């Protein structure tokens, strides 16, 4: 019993040590950003110390306009992601299960996919002006490909034995998708979702910054135009926190959805690489 206790404490000890180090790292990081402008390593007028940014952030939290902007950003992100995920999944399952269709569209996909979504910026501005719609086009375009590629991979990767089994049980096309293809493609789908969610946030902010559709990005741009340096940084910090929260959220969803899965898929070259 003593041995067991000692063992457990050794393991928790190691975890404790790495958590402590991590917290130290964060504190050190904040400290560097606090001290660097104060001693003049970076100009204090353009890079305010952490404490000032945090105070400004606190002030922002009391402003209704901040919350409106945040909400708008989140809505654009969520809507864009939703459209991209649904479209990417439907098209992906189709292309994945019909080899002829896949072969016929392969070159087209390979050509369209690397077209940077920012190339569409001037286009959507003339077509829709500085509206949410413009930004949504960018978000959907960018996130759609992430989703599509993973779903196609996932569907193609379905165990042929499982497919044959489905056929011998006469499951029919819908049953095959529902009970065979979908479950085994799910890990890929989740990877796609994770990539798409991150990309969608990037393009949401981009659209707001550059096109001027309402949201946090636009607020940042406004603050920069009017030289409200601290507000720029406070809002940037908010987008960072948003990014962290979205990562955590997607990871939770992933864990919940894939809990039953026998082999939670190891990251490969196709994956994101970082947990």
């Amino acid at each position: 019993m003593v041995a067991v206790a000692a063992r457990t404490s050794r393991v928790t000890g190691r975890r404790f040590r790495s958590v402590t180090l991590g917290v130290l790292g964060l504190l050190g990081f904040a400290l560097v950003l606090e001290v660097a402008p104060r001693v003049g390593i970076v100009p204090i007028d353009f890079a305010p110390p952490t404490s000032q940014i945090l105070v400004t952030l606190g002030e922002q939290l009391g402003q209704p306009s901040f919350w409106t902007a945040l909400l708008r950003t989140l809505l654009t992100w969520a809507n864009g992601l939703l459209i991209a995920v649904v479209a990417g999944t439907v098209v992906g399952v189709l292309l994945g299960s019909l080899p002829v269709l896949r072969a016929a569209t392969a070159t087209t996909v390979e050509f369209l996919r690397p077209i940077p979504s920012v190339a569409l910026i001037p286009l959507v501005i003339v077509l829709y002006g500085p509206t949410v719609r413009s930004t949504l086009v960018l978000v959907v375009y960018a996130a759609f490909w992430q989703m599509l590629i993973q779903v196609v991979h996932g569907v193609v990767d379905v165990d042929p034995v499982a497919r044959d089994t489905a056929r011998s049980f006469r499951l029919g096309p819908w049953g095959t998708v529902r009970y065979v293809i979908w479950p085994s493609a799910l890990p890929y789908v989740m990877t796609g979702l994770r990539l798409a969610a991150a990309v969608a946030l990037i393009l949401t902010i981009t659209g707001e910054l550059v096109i001027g559709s309402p949201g946090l990005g636009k607020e940042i741009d406004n603050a920069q135009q009017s030289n409200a340096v601290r507000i720029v940084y406070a809002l940037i910090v908010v987008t960072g926190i948003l990014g962290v929260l979205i990562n955590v959220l997607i990871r939770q969803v992933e864990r919940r959805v894939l809990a039953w899965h026998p082999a939670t898929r190891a990251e490969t070259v196709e994956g994101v690489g970082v947990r």
Partner: protein
Amino acid sequence: MLEVKNLHKVYDGHGRRVTAVGDLTFTVPEGQFACVVGPSGCGKTTLLRVLAGLLPATSGEVTVRGTPVTAPPPDLAVVFQEYGRSLFPWLRVRANVELPLKAQGMGRAQRRELASEALEAVGLSDVDNAYPWQLSGGMQQRVAIARAIAYQPKVLLMDEPFAAVDAQTRADLEDLVRSVWQRLGVTLLFVTHDIDEAVYLGQRVIVLSASPTTVAEDLAIDLPAERDQLATRSDPRFTELRGQVYARIQQVKRAPAAEGASA
């Protein structure tokens, strides 16, 4: 010369404590071909890793050619049990063999010559331009052996090198190892779980007990130096020695804990 004195090794980590080696003592004189046999999980790999300086002992002492082992000793080569994974998949066969020589600062011409010789010796001259993963398991094993030969070690450690190859390849490789040993005059410690292989290959067989591991039997193999797959294996003395080792291992299995003091 290899000396193992009261070697004791405990793995401790991830909330698990495993005694891999209980108390091992033996000596292999310069130039001897010694085989180590023992049931799987008895700590053979652990022993080799300690000898190679890849793993610290918990207690006891290990010396290679008179120097206590604290880091990988010079003039010592290892052929790993996971030979496939020990080859660099991004290097072609020849580059795999030459890399250790390059690390010694050896010139290009000499490197080429030694590598060619080694590849020739294992019969792989024609695939020196292939990647390891393009070769069969047996061929990969021979690349690993060629790398060890080209390194010109004084001590060679081999960890169950033939566990995963087919019977015919295995026989060929066994004879290859014998001829390499005879040619290089190295001290060779050869780990296996196969009794026949141990008796056929070595000048001596060290039988390990199951965990907590000790030397259960230390047997000189007095077969003629020239060995032959057919003649040697049908030699009555071979059958007799094999029987001895087998009986000993069965005995060890039945009462592992009580076997410490013998040998």
